[in-house]
């Protein structure tokens, strides 16, 4: 698979999973067995991972202009 498609696929995957995790975090698990904070775990982990990838892209990416 070409490099651009791989990176684009990773970006789309992160957007989709991030949105799903944000939706999952809204679920109320109840406080009976101490799992009330569990739904926010994937959302926080994914968001902070995406923050790192965004920073890496900002510092390291090469954007080609139309004039080369």
């Amino acid at each position: 698979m070409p490099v651009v498609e791989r990176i684009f696929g990773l970006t789309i995957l992160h957007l989709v999973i991030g949105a799903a995790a944000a939706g999952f975090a809204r679920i109320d698990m109840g406080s009976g067995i101490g799992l009330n904070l569990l739904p926010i775990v994937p959302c926080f982990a994914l968001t902070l991972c995406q923050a790192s990838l965004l920073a890496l892209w900002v510092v390291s990416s090469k954007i080609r202009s139309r004039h080369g």
Partner: protein
Amino acid sequence: MGRLLQNPLKARLIGMLFGAIYLEVIIPFSSSGEFLGLSGLAVALTILSLLAMRALGSKVEQRSEAMASEHDPSEGLRLSIGGIMIFTAIVAVLCTLAKTLQARGPTWFLLTVVWATCFVAVSLMCLWSVLGKGEPVQRALVVFVVSPLLGAFFAFAVQAHKAGCVCLLLITTLNPAVLLGSLCVVRSCGYRFVGKAAASRTLIATLPLNPD
């Protein structure tokens, strides 16, 4: 807008802005909004760290498959006296910071800064682990040990309750797992950390040999 995107610097700034806003919106959407600013601060601190490393001569750049493997000698994880001393110093600083946080009473801003700093440290370790020279597996194991330790440190510093501790430990375990997986895709595209010496070697290797 099209003209703006033709300028690489402006395009990156616009991308960063949109990305940071998206990340800021996602966390308050999922929780009560008490962590506002966490992801933005994490982005800013990671960018500053990567720019500082770039200024010191280390940067992430794309290379061809052959060149990437040529500069990838299999290098085991080595422990040096200096490394152990640095690790001990970091643990001491973290313990002092935790005690200070406990004594002063944690404020929202201080907690956000400390937690974002922990995540930035884990992110940089993940970058070193996957995009650095040599086999990433051993280094990934180190990241999987250090990251939950930082989560435990944070839980201790804020005197989190039992459910909070479990939540922090899970977040600090899942975060490097996702990041390492994503960085493996980046690595498969040929991106590697290049130090100052390696960069100059590459420059010499690509110089034309024609005497004219």
